[in-house]
């Protein structure tokens, strides 16, 4: 039985439609990440799941129970807010136990659960402080504690790490992942940080303008993006999206890419068929390799590359990024650090055709 099931959910404020026909279903223990650009409706969707915003259409089911008209307190959920929303006049301990107190849990149980959560999150020394006397990271922990102590069916997190500095964010990310594994909790997590999405999720929902673009595992989203928006949004540096022409020649698909100052680059794809005449070829930087004459890279089809003019070389420690121009677009390749690539000189590059995506330039949808 799915722990959360969203069916044809619609949300509008007056005439402004914010969410369009949302369908999501996750199993117990899933870590679902809602990701998308600012203003796409992630928080709104989370608030709809929580019952903090009434929905305009559709149903929400939690653990099999239809909770569409049920108030937040009866949905068996806990939530961590972007601003943490700690009660400013209460001590950390009171903040954490407030929910239990409201629900009439007896004092002994409260104390026991508080102690358990405090040690889990290592906030024992802070229990008597007020939220105003805590650092950002500590507040974040307290907010997590307030949710954990409830032991709900479903956890909802709204960008819980976005107010932390970069380093703390990375370490808290690891902690959240660990918590998820330890508790086997079901989590819906909102972020606009695609790295956070990739590292935490068991399933990702990519949204844009209130419409779901793709739902899938991190690997599916990364390797087989459903459209150009997803391809561009997930991954850093972003996937290269190169306009190209398709020709059928002797039963083989040949792809032609304009190359600056030279004849077009022609590569042969032995697998793909029935592509339209105009396509956009999507290839991740790490799937562009140095084409070595003798050594065949695994998965690299023969004739899937050629010499290109390198514009910029950016060494980045473990890797070196080489930027060239193909099809009128800058194209980044992620090469080994010891690569002999040099700026303003031609360099042989090959595409790993087993990993490329083809998109329709008209609607941006995936073709292969």
């Amino acid at each position, binding site marked *: 039985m799915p722990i959360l099931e969203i069916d044809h959910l619609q949300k509008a404020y007056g005439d402004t439609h914010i969410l369009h026909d949302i369908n999501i279903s996750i199993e117990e223990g899933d870590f679902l990440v809602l990701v998308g650009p600012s203003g796409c409706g992630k928080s709104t969707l989370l608030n709809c799941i929580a019952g903090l915003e009434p929905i305009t259409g559709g149903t929400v089911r939690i653990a099999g129970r239809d909770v569409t008209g049920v108030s937040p307190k009866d949905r068996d959920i806990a939530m961590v807010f972007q601003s943490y929303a700690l*009660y400013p006049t209460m001590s950390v301990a009171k903040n954490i136990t407030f929910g239990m107190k409201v629900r009439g849990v007896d004092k002994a149980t409260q104390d026991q659960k508080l102690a358990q959560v405090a040690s889990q999150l290592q906030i024992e020394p802070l229990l008597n402080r007020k939220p105003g006397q805590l650092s950002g990271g500590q507040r974040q922990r307290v907010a997590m504690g307030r949710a954990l102590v409830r032991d709900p069916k479903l956890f909802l997190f709204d960008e819980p790490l976005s107010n932390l500095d970069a380093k703390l964010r990375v370490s808290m990310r690891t902690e959240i992942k660990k918590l998820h594994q330890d508790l086997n909790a079901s989590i819906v997590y909102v972020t606009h940080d695609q790295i956070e999405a990739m590292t935490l999720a068991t399933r990702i929902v990519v949204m844009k303008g209130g419409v779901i673009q793709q739902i899938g595992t991190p690997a599916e989203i990364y390797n087989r993006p459903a459209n150009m928006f997803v391809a561009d949004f997930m991954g850093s540096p972003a996937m290269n999206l190169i306009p190209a022409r398709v020709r059928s020649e002797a039963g083989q698909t040949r792809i032609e890419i304009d190359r600056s100052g030279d004849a077009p680059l022609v590569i042969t794809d032995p697998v793909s068929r029935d592509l339209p005449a105009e396509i956009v070829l999507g290839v991740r930087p790490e799937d562009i390799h140095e084409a070595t004459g003798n050594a065949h890279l695994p998965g690299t089809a023969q004739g899937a590359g050629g010499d290109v003019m390198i514009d910029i070389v950016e060494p980045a420690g473990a890797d070196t990024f080489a930027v060239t121009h193909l099809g009128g677009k800058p194209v980044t390749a992620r090469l080994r650090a010891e690569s002999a690539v040099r700026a303003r000189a031609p360099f042989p590059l090959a595409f790993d055709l087993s990993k490329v995506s083809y998109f329709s330039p008209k609607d941006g949808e995936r073709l292969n």
Partner: protein
Amino acid sequence: MTSRTVLTKRLSRDTLTTPQTGSVAKGRRNTMLRWGLYAILILFALFYLMPLFVMLTTSLKSLEEIRTGSLLALPREITFAPWAEAWSSACAGTQCEGLRPFFWNSVLMAVPAVAISTVIGALNGYVFAQWRFPGANLFFAAILFGCFIPFQVVLLPMAQMLGLMGLAGTIPGLIFVHVIYGIGFTTLFFRNYYVTIPQELVRAAKVDGAGFFRIFFSIFLPLSLPIITVSVIWQFTQIWNDFLFGVSFSGPGSQPVTVALNNIVNSTTGVKAYNVDMASAIIAALPTLLVYVVAGKYFIRGLTAGSVKG
């Protein structure tokens, strides 16, 4: 008082201790400026304190001394007899019991009226700030409009209303009028204060299982001390000092102290007892003064709260 000292401090910091290059002439000019500033401030303070001084000294003089001495002179012989008379035996109209019964009328009127209007204002403000409902803006506009209705306009309908409710000429009637009139202001105060409290707090509390009143008492009320102070001071001053409603809606047994003061001052027969009048006036003004002295600091803080984060 507090605001004035703050102003002085700020002025002196800005204009007088700006980065100096060690020039002696500049230093001397600054000292002179500072003294000039003090002189002006002292002059203003004296000007404002003069009436109080005259009232206080006059109230401590005998009638004989008032007639012969100068208005500004200190009393040669201090007497508390006028205060005693003002409190317990001066004649307000035909009733010669001093201000005392009327003073208690005012207390009995002001305390509940302040308390009730503050509580209602807090709840109203809480709803307007955090529980948006359809038509909320219209309601709020209507309440705001209530702040600007002149007293005179409501006198007749209110008298009729009180008559219908059987509260005409009673202290509960006065309480009712003052509560109604105060709600506009108290609602405005609390609403403006509560909109600065982030909505996510309410959402968090809702998820935690708290309801409307639980959220109010556990989260909003503990944050409200500054604005409660503002509301109490404002309402107390308004209600205690009110004359028009007092004179219009009170009966013989329910007149507030302001009305009695007017009667005492106007109903002297023969020689005008200035000392008793002054003592009466001071007694009538004392409670509001006291409230300011005790809570004035929080008043200013409350008025500016929300505009400054922290």
